[in-house]
Protein backbone atom coordinates (compact mmCIF):
# COMPACT_ATOMS: atom_id res chain seq x y z
CA UNK A 1 0.00 0.00 0.00
CA UNK A 2 1.32 3.44 -0.97
CA UNK A 3 1.07 5.98 1.82
CA UNK A 4 0.54 9.10 -0.25
CA UNK A 5 -1.62 12.07 0.77
CA UNK A 6 -4.29 10.88 -1.67
CA UNK A 7 -5.18 7.94 0.62
CA UNK A 8 -6.85 10.52 2.83
CA UNK A 9 -9.02 11.83 0.00
CA UNK A 10 -12.73 11.80 0.69
CA UNK A 11 -15.87 11.65 -1.35
CA UNK A 12 -16.98 14.73 0.57
CA UNK A 13 -20.56 14.70 -0.65
CA UNK A 14 -21.01 11.07 0.39
CA UNK A 15 -19.37 11.64 3.78
CA UNK A 16 -21.47 14.73 4.39
CA UNK A 17 -24.63 12.81 3.52
CA UNK A 18 -23.69 9.93 5.80
CA UNK A 19 -22.92 12.17 8.76
CA UNK A 20 -26.08 14.19 8.30
CA UNK A 21 -28.14 11.00 8.10
CA UNK A 22 -26.41 9.63 11.22
CA UNK A 23 -27.10 12.79 13.26
CA UNK A 24 -30.72 13.07 12.16
CA UNK A 25 -31.40 9.39 12.79
CA UNK A 26 -29.87 9.47 16.26
CA UNK A 27 -31.71 12.64 17.33
CA UNK A 28 -35.00 11.23 16.08
CA UNK A 29 -34.55 7.83 17.70
CA UNK A 30 -33.53 9.34 21.02
CA UNK A 31 -36.54 11.69 20.80
CA UNK A 32 -34.32 14.61 21.79
CA UNK A 33 -35.35 18.17 21.00
CA UNK A 34 -32.02 19.09 19.49
CA UNK A 35 -28.28 19.31 19.91
CA UNK A 36 -26.00 21.22 22.27
CA UNK A 37 -22.34 21.57 21.42
CA UNK A 38 -19.31 23.55 22.41
CA UNK A 39 -18.41 26.13 19.78
CA UNK A 40 -14.77 27.12 20.13
CA UNK A 41 -14.21 28.75 16.77
CA UNK A 42 -11.90 25.88 15.81
CA UNK A 43 -12.31 23.65 12.80
CA UNK A 44 -13.70 20.51 14.48
CA UNK A 45 -16.49 22.23 16.39
CA UNK A 46 -17.27 24.43 13.38
CA UNK A 47 -17.67 21.40 11.11
CA UNK A 48 -19.71 19.51 13.71
CA UNK A 49 -21.97 22.50 14.32
CA UNK A 50 -22.47 23.02 10.60
CA UNK A 51 -23.29 19.36 9.97
CA UNK A 52 -25.67 19.31 12.93
CA UNK A 53 -27.49 22.35 11.59
CA UNK A 54 -27.62 20.86 8.10
CA UNK A 55 -28.97 17.60 9.55
CA UNK A 56 -31.71 18.82 11.87
CA UNK A 57 -32.01 22.56 11.21
CA UNK A 58 -30.06 25.34 12.86
CA UNK A 59 -32.96 26.29 15.12
CA UNK A 60 -32.51 22.97 16.92
CA UNK A 61 -28.77 23.41 17.45
CA UNK A 62 -27.37 25.41 20.35
CA UNK A 63 -23.71 26.35 20.23
CA UNK A 64 -22.20 27.25 23.59
CA UNK A 65 -19.29 29.68 23.55
CA UNK A 66 -17.45 29.20 26.83
CA UNK A 67 -14.39 31.47 26.89
CA UNK A 68 -12.19 32.03 29.91
CA UNK A 69 -9.76 34.76 30.83
CA UNK A 70 -6.39 33.03 30.28
CA UNK A 71 -7.04 31.80 26.75
CA UNK A 72 -9.54 34.46 25.74
CA UNK A 73 -9.22 35.02 22.01
CA UNK A 74 -11.38 37.57 20.22
CA UNK A 75 -10.73 35.98 16.86
CA UNK A 76 -11.96 32.55 18.03
CA UNK A 77 -15.16 34.10 19.32
CA UNK A 78 -15.65 35.93 16.04
CA UNK A 79 -15.11 32.66 14.17
CA UNK A 80 -17.62 30.81 16.34
CA UNK A 81 -20.19 33.56 15.71
CA UNK A 82 -19.41 33.49 11.99
CA UNK A 83 -20.18 29.76 11.80
CA UNK A 84 -23.35 30.21 13.87
CA UNK A 85 -24.55 32.94 11.57
CA UNK A 86 -23.69 31.10 8.39
CA UNK A 87 -25.41 27.84 9.41
CA UNK A 88 -28.24 29.46 11.35
CA UNK A 89 -27.64 27.97 14.77
CA UNK A 90 -28.45 29.54 18.10
CA UNK A 91 -25.63 30.53 20.44
CA UNK A 92 -25.10 31.45 24.01
CA UNK A 93 -21.87 32.83 25.46
CA UNK A 94 -20.90 32.34 29.08
CA UNK A 95 -17.61 33.47 30.56
CA UNK A 96 -16.53 30.49 32.68
CA UNK A 97 -13.68 32.35 34.42
CA UNK A 98 -15.53 32.80 37.74
CA UNK A 99 -16.49 29.10 37.82
CA UNK A 100 -12.89 28.08 37.14
CA UNK A 101 -11.59 30.34 39.90
CA UNK A 102 -13.96 28.71 42.38
CA UNK A 103 -12.67 25.33 41.32
CA UNK A 104 -9.01 26.33 41.59
CA UNK A 105 -9.54 27.92 45.03
CA UNK A 106 -11.46 24.96 46.41
CA UNK A 107 -8.80 22.35 45.63
CA UNK A 108 -6.28 22.10 48.52
CA UNK A 109 -3.58 20.61 46.32
CA UNK A 110 -4.19 22.96 43.37
CA UNK A 111 -0.96 23.97 41.66
CA UNK A 112 -1.21 26.78 39.15
CA UNK A 113 2.06 25.98 37.33
CA UNK A 114 0.80 22.49 36.45
CA UNK A 115 -0.85 23.77 33.31
CA UNK A 116 -2.05 20.38 32.09
CA UNK A 117 -4.03 19.55 35.26
CA UNK A 118 -5.34 23.10 35.31
CA UNK A 119 -6.23 22.98 31.62
CA UNK A 120 -8.12 19.73 32.11
CA UNK A 121 -10.35 21.51 34.65
CA UNK A 122 -11.27 23.93 31.87
CA UNK A 123 -12.20 21.14 29.47
CA UNK A 124 -14.21 19.30 32.12
CA UNK A 125 -15.95 22.46 33.26
CA UNK A 126 -17.12 23.09 29.72
CA UNK A 127 -18.46 19.53 29.65
CA UNK A 128 -20.56 20.31 32.74
CA UNK A 129 -22.09 23.31 30.99
CA UNK A 130 -22.93 21.28 27.85
CA UNK A 131 -24.59 18.57 29.85
CA UNK A 132 -26.51 21.02 32.01
CA UNK A 133 -28.00 22.63 28.92
CA UNK A 134 -28.68 19.25 27.33
CA UNK A 135 -30.45 17.94 30.45
CA UNK A 136 -32.41 21.13 30.99
CA UNK A 137 -33.49 21.50 27.35
CA UNK A 138 -33.93 17.79 26.61
CA UNK A 139 -31.18 17.86 24.01
CA UNK A 140 -28.16 15.74 23.16
CA UNK A 141 -24.52 16.69 23.53
CA UNK A 142 -22.71 16.41 20.23
CA UNK A 143 -18.94 15.98 20.44
CA UNK A 144 -16.50 17.23 17.85
CA UNK A 145 -13.45 15.04 18.46
CA UNK A 146 -11.68 13.96 15.30
CA UNK A 147 -9.88 10.67 14.66
CA UNK A 148 -6.37 12.14 14.89
CA UNK A 149 -6.85 13.35 18.45
CA UNK A 150 -8.91 10.31 19.40
CA UNK A 151 -6.24 7.87 18.26
CA UNK A 152 -3.37 9.81 19.83
CA UNK A 153 -5.34 10.42 23.03
CA UNK A 154 -4.86 14.13 22.51
CA UNK A 155 -7.89 15.19 24.52
CA UNK A 156 -9.07 15.49 28.10
CA UNK A 157 -10.58 12.30 29.46
CA UNK A 158 -14.26 12.99 30.30
CA UNK A 159 -13.69 16.56 29.10
CA UNK A 160 -13.87 17.77 25.51
CA UNK A 161 -14.45 14.20 24.33
CA UNK A 162 -17.58 13.72 26.49
CA UNK A 163 -20.67 13.50 24.30
CA UNK A 164 -23.68 11.44 23.32
CA UNK A 165 -22.58 11.25 19.70
CA UNK A 166 -19.35 12.22 17.92
CA UNK A 167 -20.14 12.53 14.22
CA UNK A 168 -16.62 13.33 12.93
CA UNK A 169 -14.72 10.89 15.14
CA UNK A 170 -14.00 8.59 12.18
CA UNK A 171 -12.31 11.36 10.18
CA UNK A 172 -8.67 12.36 10.56
CA UNK A 173 -7.92 16.06 11.02
CA UNK A 174 -6.78 16.55 7.41
CA UNK A 175 -10.04 14.93 6.28
CA UNK A 176 -12.06 17.22 8.55
CA UNK A 177 -10.34 20.12 6.79
CA UNK A 178 -11.45 18.78 3.41
CA UNK A 179 -14.99 18.28 4.63
CA UNK A 180 -14.96 21.79 6.15
CA UNK A 181 -14.09 23.30 2.79
CA UNK A 182 -16.76 21.21 1.09
CA UNK A 183 -19.58 22.31 3.39
CA UNK A 184 -18.50 25.95 3.31
CA UNK A 185 -16.88 26.55 6.69
CA UNK A 186 -15.11 29.94 6.33
CA UNK A 187 -11.55 29.60 5.04
CA UNK A 188 -9.96 31.46 7.95
CA UNK A 189 -11.23 28.75 10.31
CA UNK A 190 -10.01 25.91 8.06
CA UNK A 191 -6.49 27.28 7.75
CA UNK A 192 -5.74 28.46 11.28
CA UNK A 193 -3.56 26.24 13.49
CA UNK A 194 -5.42 23.82 15.80
CA UNK A 195 -5.32 24.38 19.55
CA UNK A 196 -7.11 22.73 22.48
CA UNK A 197 -6.77 26.14 24.25
CA UNK A 198 -6.04 24.65 27.66
CA UNK A 199 -3.37 27.31 28.22
CA UNK A 200 -2.24 30.42 26.35
CA UNK A 201 -0.23 29.77 23.19
CA UNK A 202 -0.87 26.02 23.13
CA UNK A 203 -0.66 24.62 19.59
CA UNK A 204 -1.58 21.04 18.75
CA UNK A 205 1.09 20.35 16.13
CA UNK A 206 3.80 21.86 18.32
CA UNK A 207 2.76 19.81 21.32
CA UNK A 208 2.37 16.58 19.38
CA UNK A 209 5.72 17.25 17.68
CA UNK A 210 4.41 16.48 14.23
CA UNK A 211 2.37 18.08 11.45
CA UNK A 212 -1.14 16.69 10.97
CA UNK A 213 -0.35 15.90 7.31
CA UNK A 214 2.29 13.40 8.45
CA UNK A 215 0.54 12.29 11.63
CA UNK A 216 -2.60 11.35 9.73
CA UNK A 217 -0.65 9.23 7.26
CA UNK A 218 1.08 7.42 10.12
CA UNK A 219 -2.28 6.81 11.82
CA UNK A 220 -3.77 5.69 8.52
CA UNK A 221 -0.96 3.16 8.10
CA UNK A 222 -1.31 1.88 11.67
CA UNK A 223 -5.07 1.55 11.19
CA UNK A 224 -4.40 -0.73 8.23
CA UNK A 225 -1.94 -2.90 10.13
CA UNK A 226 1.17 -1.56 8.39
CA UNK A 227 4.45 -2.08 10.21
CA UNK A 228 6.25 0.92 11.73
CA UNK A 229 9.33 0.29 9.55
CA UNK A 230 7.26 0.35 6.39
CA UNK A 231 5.41 3.52 7.37
CA UNK A 232 8.68 5.29 8.27
CA UNK A 233 10.30 4.19 5.03
CA UNK A 234 7.42 5.30 2.85
CA UNK A 235 6.96 8.66 4.57
CA UNK A 236 10.72 9.20 4.83
CA UNK A 237 10.53 9.93 8.54
CA UNK A 238 12.53 8.48 11.42
CA UNK A 239 11.24 5.14 12.68
CA UNK A 240 11.48 6.55 16.23
CA UNK A 241 8.81 9.08 15.30
CA UNK A 242 6.44 6.36 14.06
CA UNK A 243 7.20 4.29 17.17
CA UNK A 244 6.41 7.27 19.37
CA UNK A 245 3.04 7.78 17.67
CA UNK A 246 2.32 4.05 17.84
CA UNK A 247 3.06 4.06 21.59
CA UNK A 248 0.55 6.85 22.12
CA UNK A 249 -1.93 5.08 19.85
CA UNK A 250 -1.72 1.92 21.99
CA UNK A 251 -1.30 3.47 25.42
CA UNK A 252 -4.27 5.84 25.08
CA UNK A 253 -6.85 3.08 24.71
CA UNK A 254 -7.88 3.72 28.33
CA UNK A 255 -9.13 7.15 27.25
CA UNK A 256 -11.29 5.71 24.50
CA UNK A 257 -13.23 3.16 26.54
CA UNK A 258 -15.56 2.89 29.48
CA UNK A 259 -13.57 2.28 32.70
CA UNK A 260 -12.12 -1.20 32.93
CA UNK A 261 -13.38 -3.48 35.65
CA UNK A 262 -12.49 -7.00 36.62
CA UNK A 263 -14.66 -9.89 35.60
CA UNK A 264 -16.76 -11.12 38.52
CA UNK A 265 -20.28 -11.69 37.32
CA UNK A 266 -22.09 -13.41 34.47
CA UNK A 267 -22.07 -10.49 32.01
CA UNK A 268 -19.70 -7.56 32.54
CA UNK A 269 -19.95 -4.01 31.20
CA UNK A 270 -17.23 -3.27 28.67
CA UNK A 271 -16.39 -6.97 28.27
CA UNK A 272 -19.18 -9.36 27.40
CA UNK A 273 -22.25 -7.27 28.13
CA UNK A 274 -23.26 -6.44 24.58
CA UNK A 275 -26.36 -4.42 24.04
CA UNK A 276 -27.35 -2.14 21.20
CA UNK A 277 -28.65 1.40 21.03
CA UNK A 278 -32.41 1.85 20.71
CA UNK A 279 -33.53 -1.76 20.97
CA UNK A 280 -36.87 -2.64 22.45
Amino acid at each position, binding site marked *: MKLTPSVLDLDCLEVETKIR*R*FIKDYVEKSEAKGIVLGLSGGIDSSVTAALSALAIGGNKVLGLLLPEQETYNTQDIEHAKLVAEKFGLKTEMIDITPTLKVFYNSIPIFETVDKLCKGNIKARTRMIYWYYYANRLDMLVCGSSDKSETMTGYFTKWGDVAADISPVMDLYKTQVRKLAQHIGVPKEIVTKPATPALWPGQLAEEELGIKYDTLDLILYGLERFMKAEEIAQQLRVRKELVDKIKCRWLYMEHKRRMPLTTKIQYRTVGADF*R*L*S*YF*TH
Partner: protein
Amino acid sequence: MKEKFKIALAQISCKRGDKAENVRKIEDNVTKAKKQGAELVIFPELSLTGYTVRDQIYELAETIPGSSTNVLEKLARKTETHIVFGMPELSEKTQATIHNTAVLIGPDGFIGRYRKMYLPTHSVFEEKRYFRPGYQTPVFETEFGKIGLIICYDVFFPEVSRLTRLKGAQLIICISASPAVRRTFFEILTAARAIENTVFLAYVNLTGVEDGLQFWGGSRLVGPNGKVLVKAKYNEEDLVMGEVNYADIRPIETFVPTLKDLRPEFFSELKENAEKL
Protein backbone atom coordinates in the same frame (compact mmCIF):
# COMPACT_ATOMS: atom_id res chain seq x y z
CA MET B 1 -44.67 -24.18 -13.13
CA LYS B 2 -44.81 -20.47 -13.88
CA GLU B 3 -42.14 -19.32 -16.32
CA LYS B 4 -42.86 -15.66 -15.81
CA PHE B 5 -43.84 -13.88 -12.60
CA LYS B 6 -43.52 -10.65 -10.69
CA ILE B 7 -41.45 -10.29 -7.57
CA ALA B 8 -41.19 -7.41 -5.09
CA LEU B 9 -38.00 -6.30 -3.40
CA ALA B 10 -39.16 -4.93 -0.05
CA GLN B 11 -36.22 -2.88 1.19
CA ILE B 12 -37.14 -1.92 4.73
CA SER B 13 -35.46 -0.55 7.83
CA CYS B 14 -36.27 -2.32 11.07
CA LYS B 15 -37.18 -1.25 14.55
CA ARG B 16 -34.66 -3.24 16.46
CA GLY B 17 -36.02 -5.77 18.89
CA ASP B 18 -39.62 -4.87 18.06
CA LYS B 19 -40.94 -7.91 16.23
CA ALA B 20 -44.56 -6.73 16.27
CA GLU B 21 -43.60 -3.47 14.54
CA ASN B 22 -41.45 -5.27 11.98
CA VAL B 23 -44.21 -7.79 11.26
CA ARG B 24 -46.57 -4.87 10.75
CA LYS B 25 -44.14 -3.38 8.26
CA ILE B 26 -43.86 -6.72 6.47
CA GLU B 27 -47.66 -6.91 6.27
CA ASP B 28 -47.88 -3.39 4.83
CA ASN B 29 -45.29 -4.13 2.20
CA VAL B 30 -46.81 -7.46 1.21
CA THR B 31 -50.22 -5.82 0.82
CA LYS B 32 -48.77 -3.02 -1.31
CA ALA B 33 -46.70 -5.42 -3.40
CA LYS B 34 -49.68 -7.70 -3.96
CA LYS B 35 -51.70 -4.77 -5.29
CA GLN B 36 -48.93 -4.21 -7.81
CA GLY B 37 -49.08 -7.81 -8.92
CA ALA B 38 -46.21 -9.36 -6.96
CA GLU B 39 -46.41 -13.07 -6.31
CA LEU B 40 -43.22 -13.24 -4.31
CA VAL B 41 -42.16 -10.55 -1.81
CA ILE B 42 -38.63 -10.55 -0.39
CA PHE B 43 -37.41 -8.85 2.81
CA PRO B 44 -33.84 -8.34 4.14
CA GLU B 45 -31.72 -10.49 6.43
CA LEU B 46 -33.00 -10.59 10.03
CA SER B 47 -35.91 -8.39 8.99
CA LEU B 48 -38.02 -9.75 11.84
CA THR B 49 -35.74 -8.22 14.49
CA GLY B 50 -33.24 -5.83 12.91
CA TYR B 51 -29.61 -6.79 12.37
CA THR B 52 -27.68 -5.27 15.28
CA VAL B 53 -29.47 -6.68 18.31
CA ARG B 54 -26.42 -8.28 19.96
CA ASP B 55 -27.21 -10.06 23.26
CA GLN B 56 -30.93 -9.53 22.81
CA ILE B 57 -30.84 -12.14 20.11
CA TYR B 58 -31.44 -14.75 22.84
CA GLU B 59 -34.75 -13.14 23.78
CA LEU B 60 -35.79 -12.52 20.21
CA ALA B 61 -35.01 -15.86 18.55
CA GLU B 62 -37.94 -18.13 17.79
CA THR B 63 -38.38 -21.67 16.63
CA ILE B 64 -39.87 -22.49 13.26
CA PRO B 65 -42.80 -22.93 13.44
CA GLY B 66 -43.24 -20.23 16.04
CA SER B 67 -45.43 -17.25 16.77
CA SER B 68 -43.89 -14.97 14.09
CA THR B 69 -43.86 -17.58 11.34
CA ASN B 70 -47.48 -18.42 12.24
CA VAL B 71 -48.51 -14.78 11.76
CA LEU B 72 -46.62 -14.48 8.50
CA GLU B 73 -47.97 -17.79 7.20
CA LYS B 74 -51.47 -16.42 7.72
CA LEU B 75 -50.45 -13.32 5.82
CA ALA B 76 -49.15 -15.43 2.93
CA ARG B 77 -52.39 -17.42 2.87
CA LYS B 78 -54.58 -14.35 3.03
CA THR B 79 -52.70 -12.47 0.31
CA GLU B 80 -51.87 -15.58 -1.71
CA THR B 81 -48.25 -14.56 -1.98
CA HIS B 82 -44.91 -16.14 -1.34
CA ILE B 83 -42.77 -14.32 1.24
CA VAL B 84 -39.07 -14.54 2.07
CA PHE B 85 -37.82 -12.89 5.24
CA GLY B 86 -34.98 -13.26 7.73
CA MET B 87 -35.10 -14.14 11.41
CA PRO B 88 -33.00 -15.50 14.26
CA GLU B 89 -34.11 -19.12 14.45
CA LEU B 90 -33.90 -20.96 17.74
CA SER B 91 -33.07 -24.63 17.36
CA GLU B 92 -35.92 -26.84 18.59
CA LYS B 93 -33.50 -29.12 20.39
CA THR B 94 -31.72 -26.49 22.45
CA GLN B 95 -32.44 -23.35 24.43
CA ALA B 96 -29.85 -20.92 23.11
CA THR B 97 -28.55 -22.25 19.80
CA ILE B 98 -29.53 -19.84 17.09
CA HIS B 99 -29.25 -19.72 13.32
CA ASN B 100 -29.37 -16.72 11.02
CA THR B 101 -32.19 -18.02 8.85
CA ALA B 102 -34.06 -17.13 5.68
CA VAL B 103 -37.63 -18.40 5.66
CA LEU B 104 -39.76 -19.10 2.59
CA ILE B 105 -43.52 -19.31 3.07
CA GLY B 106 -46.33 -19.46 0.56
CA PRO B 107 -50.11 -19.55 0.27
CA ASP B 108 -50.05 -23.13 1.53
CA GLY B 109 -47.87 -22.32 4.53
CA PHE B 110 -44.23 -22.99 5.37
CA ILE B 111 -42.09 -24.12 2.43
CA GLY B 112 -38.57 -24.12 3.76
CA ARG B 113 -35.68 -22.44 5.54
CA TYR B 114 -32.06 -21.76 4.80
CA ARG B 115 -29.54 -21.34 7.58
CA LYS B 116 -26.68 -18.96 6.74
CA MET B 117 -23.49 -20.91 6.05
CA TYR B 118 -20.89 -18.16 6.20
CA LEU B 119 -21.13 -16.06 9.34
CA PRO B 120 -18.96 -12.93 9.15
CA THR B 121 -16.97 -12.39 12.32
CA HIS B 122 -14.56 -9.67 11.37
CA SER B 123 -14.61 -5.89 11.10
CA VAL B 124 -17.96 -4.78 12.61
CA PHE B 125 -19.52 -8.23 12.35
CA GLU B 126 -19.82 -10.70 15.23
CA GLU B 127 -22.13 -13.36 13.84
CA LYS B 128 -20.15 -16.41 14.95
CA ARG B 129 -20.51 -15.19 18.49
CA TYR B 130 -24.26 -15.60 18.27
CA PHE B 131 -25.11 -17.99 15.45
CA ARG B 132 -24.45 -21.58 14.56
CA PRO B 133 -23.73 -21.94 10.84
CA GLY B 134 -25.98 -23.93 8.53
CA TYR B 135 -24.71 -27.04 6.77
CA GLN B 136 -27.11 -27.38 3.89
CA THR B 137 -27.82 -25.66 0.59
CA PRO B 138 -31.40 -26.72 -0.05
CA VAL B 139 -33.51 -25.64 -2.99
CA PHE B 140 -37.24 -25.29 -2.58
CA GLU B 141 -39.86 -26.60 -4.96
CA THR B 142 -42.48 -23.92 -5.64
CA GLU B 143 -44.91 -22.92 -8.35
CA PHE B 144 -42.03 -20.72 -9.61
CA GLY B 145 -39.77 -23.70 -10.00
CA LYS B 146 -36.88 -24.39 -7.68
CA ILE B 147 -35.67 -21.47 -5.59
CA GLY B 148 -32.32 -21.22 -3.82
CA LEU B 149 -31.81 -19.04 -0.76
CA ILE B 150 -28.54 -17.52 0.42
CA ILE B 151 -27.76 -14.82 2.98
CA CYS B 152 -25.46 -11.81 2.61
CA TYR B 153 -21.83 -12.91 3.14
CA ASP B 154 -22.65 -16.26 1.45
CA VAL B 155 -22.50 -14.34 -1.83
CA PHE B 156 -18.70 -14.02 -1.40
CA PHE B 157 -18.42 -17.82 -1.68
CA PRO B 158 -19.41 -18.92 -5.20
CA GLU B 159 -19.89 -22.55 -4.17
CA VAL B 160 -23.11 -21.80 -2.23
CA SER B 161 -24.87 -20.25 -5.19
CA ARG B 162 -23.36 -22.85 -7.51
CA LEU B 163 -24.75 -25.70 -5.43
CA THR B 164 -28.27 -24.30 -5.47
CA ARG B 165 -27.97 -23.83 -9.24
CA LEU B 166 -26.71 -27.37 -9.72
CA LYS B 167 -29.69 -28.58 -7.69
CA GLY B 168 -31.96 -26.89 -10.20
CA ALA B 169 -32.61 -23.37 -8.90
CA GLN B 170 -33.21 -20.80 -11.63
CA LEU B 171 -33.85 -18.06 -9.11
CA ILE B 172 -31.45 -17.41 -6.25
CA ILE B 173 -32.61 -15.08 -3.51
CA CYS B 174 -29.96 -13.35 -1.44
CA ILE B 175 -31.22 -11.50 1.61
CA SER B 176 -28.73 -9.16 3.19
CA ALA B 177 -27.79 -6.63 5.87
CA SER B 178 -24.81 -4.93 4.29
CA PRO B 179 -23.43 -1.64 5.64
CA ALA B 180 -22.38 1.13 3.29
CA VAL B 181 -18.62 0.60 3.13
CA ARG B 182 -19.15 -2.77 1.44
CA ARG B 183 -21.48 -1.67 -1.32
CA THR B 184 -19.05 -2.13 -4.20
CA PHE B 185 -18.34 -5.75 -3.24
CA PHE B 186 -22.01 -6.66 -3.30
CA GLU B 187 -22.76 -4.79 -6.50
CA ILE B 188 -20.03 -6.77 -8.24
CA LEU B 189 -20.63 -10.12 -6.59
CA THR B 190 -24.39 -10.24 -7.10
CA ALA B 191 -23.80 -9.73 -10.82
CA ALA B 192 -20.98 -12.29 -10.82
CA ARG B 193 -23.09 -14.99 -9.13
CA ALA B 194 -25.86 -14.40 -11.67
CA ILE B 195 -23.50 -14.58 -14.67
CA GLU B 196 -21.46 -17.58 -13.58
CA ASN B 197 -24.63 -19.57 -12.90
CA THR B 198 -26.84 -18.10 -15.65
CA VAL B 199 -29.52 -17.54 -13.09
CA PHE B 200 -31.81 -14.77 -11.85
CA LEU B 201 -30.56 -13.34 -8.59
CA ALA B 202 -32.79 -11.21 -6.34
CA TYR B 203 -30.77 -9.28 -3.77
CA VAL B 204 -32.65 -7.51 -0.98
CA ASN B 205 -30.66 -5.42 1.45
CA LEU B 206 -31.58 -3.74 4.69
CA THR B 207 -31.63 0.04 4.96
CA GLY B 208 -31.57 2.47 7.88
CA VAL B 209 -29.00 3.17 10.60
CA GLU B 210 -28.22 0.73 13.42
CA ASP B 211 -25.49 1.54 15.95
CA GLY B 212 -23.68 3.80 13.50
CA LEU B 213 -23.87 1.26 10.67
CA GLN B 214 -25.65 2.62 7.63
CA PHE B 215 -27.22 -0.11 5.53
CA TRP B 216 -27.08 0.99 1.94
CA GLY B 217 -30.18 -0.61 0.46
CA GLY B 218 -29.71 -0.77 -3.33
CA SER B 219 -31.67 -4.02 -3.60
CA ARG B 220 -31.83 -5.40 -7.12
CA LEU B 221 -33.01 -8.09 -9.45
CA VAL B 222 -30.13 -9.24 -11.62
CA GLY B 223 -30.72 -11.11 -14.85
CA PRO B 224 -28.75 -14.20 -15.96
CA ASN B 225 -26.43 -11.96 -18.02
CA GLY B 226 -25.57 -9.87 -14.96
CA LYS B 227 -27.74 -6.97 -16.01
CA VAL B 228 -29.48 -5.14 -13.19
CA LEU B 229 -33.14 -5.33 -14.22
CA VAL B 230 -34.57 -3.24 -11.39
CA LYS B 231 -32.90 -1.49 -8.50
CA ALA B 232 -34.18 0.04 -5.26
CA LYS B 233 -32.97 3.39 -3.95
CA TYR B 234 -29.82 3.69 -1.91
CA ASN B 235 -30.10 4.40 1.82
CA GLU B 236 -33.87 4.61 2.13
CA GLU B 237 -36.85 2.34 2.27
CA ASP B 238 -38.21 1.29 -1.09
CA LEU B 239 -40.48 -1.27 -2.68
CA VAL B 240 -39.67 -2.14 -6.26
CA MET B 241 -41.19 -4.66 -8.61
CA GLY B 242 -39.31 -6.83 -11.04
CA GLU B 243 -40.20 -9.54 -13.48
CA VAL B 244 -38.51 -12.90 -13.69
CA ASN B 245 -38.85 -14.65 -17.03
CA TYR B 246 -37.03 -17.96 -17.13
CA ALA B 247 -37.20 -17.92 -20.92
CA ASP B 248 -34.45 -15.28 -20.74
CA ILE B 249 -32.02 -17.84 -19.34
CA ARG B 250 -31.80 -19.95 -22.51
CA PRO B 251 -30.22 -17.37 -24.83
CA ILE B 252 -27.71 -16.44 -22.14
CA GLU B 253 -26.91 -20.06 -21.36
CA THR B 254 -26.11 -20.61 -25.03
CA PHE B 255 -24.11 -17.38 -25.30
CA VAL B 256 -22.01 -17.89 -22.15
CA PRO B 257 -22.45 -21.58 -21.35
CA THR B 258 -20.88 -21.65 -17.90
CA LEU B 259 -22.86 -24.68 -16.77
CA LYS B 260 -22.08 -26.69 -19.90
CA ASP B 261 -18.39 -25.91 -19.44
CA LEU B 262 -18.20 -26.81 -15.74
CA ARG B 263 -15.12 -28.92 -14.90
CA PRO B 264 -15.97 -31.07 -11.86
CA GLU B 265 -12.52 -32.65 -11.82
CA PHE B 266 -11.15 -29.43 -10.31
CA PHE B 267 -13.49 -29.60 -7.36
CA SER B 268 -11.56 -32.28 -5.46
CA GLU B 269 -8.33 -30.35 -6.04
CA LEU B 270 -10.06 -27.23 -4.79
CA LYS B 271 -11.07 -29.07 -1.63
CA GLU B 272 -7.55 -30.41 -1.05
CA ASN B 273 -5.95 -27.01 -1.44
CA ALA B 274 -8.56 -25.23 0.66
CA GLU B 275 -7.81 -27.66 3.49
CA LYS B 276 -4.10 -26.85 3.26
CA LEU B 277 -4.50 -23.04 3.25
